[in-house]
């Protein structure tokens, strides 16, 4: 572990290290692609022309000329074809359009839920690690309590009582998954606290919050980032599992998990309905994990070979 405050060159070094891992680098490209797809969904999948020339004689159609909710019962359960690249579902909605919009929900669940728990975890972990004593005792007890709940069971209970909605799913995953980060940050802070630069900052009369957030936190951030990357993958998986049990997002909102769970009953007559969202979920999760692993290898110098 570096004993001085990590300078921007530290991140440069990490990046250089990371680039060596081709698989992880391509993973990052894939995530960038997903983000572009999620942000650009309204222009990728729409039944309105993207652009028309002045006279209106020529129009540029969207790559997927359907909206995710536009249904056509006459085209129910069509296998992939020229018009519907990935086929249609039982209401005759275009699966490709739904997948593009579904990426928004899946990513949002991942990012927001992880954002929430990273924030909670950092705060509690930092407090416990920095102050120690009874603060540490209380936080440690809280962590232990949370660990003892089977998380998935707890999420189900909370969702059953609060009612399923995209926000509830994000918040509940966020509120139940912070223990890992908290333990990580606490550990880092315990290590950092006795180091010279921290002691120096305290001696110079810096306020607690300044010491915590300006001096110590940046040094503890790298492992948090790794953990968060894995967390996004886990959150996407949890969302799809909840959808399967009927606790997912409301039916008019397409998410990969809900598309997949709706396809269950047509499994033997509409393979594309199961294959497309299933593949999308597992490829995305795989990529997030590869990126997380790459990041860890790049950050943790002990594993350098």
């Amino acid at each position, binding site marked *: 572990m570096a004993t001085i405050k990590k300078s921007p060159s530290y991140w440069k070094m990490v990046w250089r290290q990371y680039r060596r891992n081709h*698989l992880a680098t391509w993973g990052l490209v894939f995530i960038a692609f997903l983000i572009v797809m999620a942000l650009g969904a309204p222009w990728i999948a729409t039944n309105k022309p993207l652009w028309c020339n002045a006279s209106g004689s020529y129009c540029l159609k969207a790559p997927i000329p359907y909206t995710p909710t536009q249904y056509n019962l006459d085209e129910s359960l069509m296998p992939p074809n020229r018009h519907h690249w990935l086929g249609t579902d039982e209401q005759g909605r275009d699966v490709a359009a739904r997948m593009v919009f579904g990426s928004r929900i899946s990513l949002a669940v991942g990012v927001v839920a992880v954002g929430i728990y990273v924030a909670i975890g950092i705060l509690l972990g930092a407090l416990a690690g920095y102050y120690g004593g009874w603060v540490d005792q209380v936080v440690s007890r809280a962590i232990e309590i949370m660990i003892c709940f089977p998380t998935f069971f707890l999420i189900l209970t909370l969702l059953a009582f609060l009612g399923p909605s995209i926000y509830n799913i994000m918040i509940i995953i966020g509120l139940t998954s912070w223990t890992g980060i908290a333990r990580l940050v606490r550990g880092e802070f315990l290590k950092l606290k006795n180091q010279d630069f921290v002691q120096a900052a305290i001696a110079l009369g810096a306020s607690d919050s300044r010491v915590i957030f300006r001096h110590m936190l940046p040094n503890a951030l790298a492992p948090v980032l790794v953990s968060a990357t894995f967390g996004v993958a886990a959150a996407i998986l949890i969302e*799809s599992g909840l959808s399967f*049990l009927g606790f997912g997002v409301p039916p008019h909102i397409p998410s990969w998990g809900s598309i*997949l769970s709706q396809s269950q009953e047509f499994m033997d007559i509409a393979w594309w309905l199961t294959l497309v969202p*299933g593949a999308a*979920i597992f490829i995305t999760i795989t990529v997030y994990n590869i990126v997380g692993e790459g990041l860890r290898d790049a950050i943790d110098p002990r594993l350098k070979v």
Partner: protein
Amino acid sequence: MLGYVAKRLLLMIPTFFGITVLTFFIIKLAPGDPALMRVQMQGMGKVDAQMAAQIVEETRKLYGLDQPLYVQYGKWMKRLVTLDFGESYADHRPVIEKIKEAFPITILLNVLTIIIIYVISIPVGIFTALKPQSWWDYGSALLLFILYSLPSFWVAALLMTYFAGGDYLNLFPIMGISSFGAESLPWYEYVSNVAWHLVLPIVCLTYGGFAFLARFARSNMLEVIHQDFMRTARAKGLSEWAVIMRHGFRNSLVPLVSLMGSLLPALLGGSVIIEQIFSIPGMGRLGFQSILQRDYPTIMALTAIEAVLTLLSILLSDLLYAVVDPRIRYGDD
């Protein structure tokens, strides 16, 4: 050592209270209660408001749900001291009886799962560590991540349709843990019947666990490989294989022990979906159904039991840690 264990056990008490209080208030404060489950919708969605009000009031009184929350919690705690978990709202059976039926099944599933995960992933992890950043390392990492990323309910449904359904291959049973009437078979046939039923659920429960453990074993091994005692061992002229097995393997095992404690709650939760899909009457399915039925006593009992189990398994793995790694001593710290 004894003093340490006693201290740890004492520290469990506030944690246990925390868990039960939290569960109690979560399920009570949220909308929907078991009294409302008694109101039935007759044909045409007829719900008679007066009738319903009366049903709800009577049921609440019967279950003591009309009392203040702290009184309800106190009563629950008081009964718990005598290990009485109360009666299920759903069927008026003692909760402990329902758990006794479900518990062995879930334990069977999870113990088998944990064993298989360890047996497969530790060798994989160690061998990948021997040739880091080789194609073999990359390839297995990718494969493990792909396995980890496959949603288990999706795999379960695919396996069921293509390997156990009526339309394609019909190799495995589709549900339950034994055939009906299998109890009358000779024991070896009964065992093979159960094993045959467990194949698909266990596959679904295990494949996702390989990645984490194998990667963990790999990084531990990598760490160990470059330490001085390994170099010394090699210098002594031991064969590479002996070095790896005798020194590397043993030392890389240490952190793996500590993982056992956190694996249990994850598996208990994770088997909800699998138990539901394969109609296995274990703890996961019991918990899921109690949530849907607002069966408070069962939810509380399950949470309490799982909490205690987890606390104990964490303690156990910490103690094991000390046994495996002589550098760690628990004493009066």
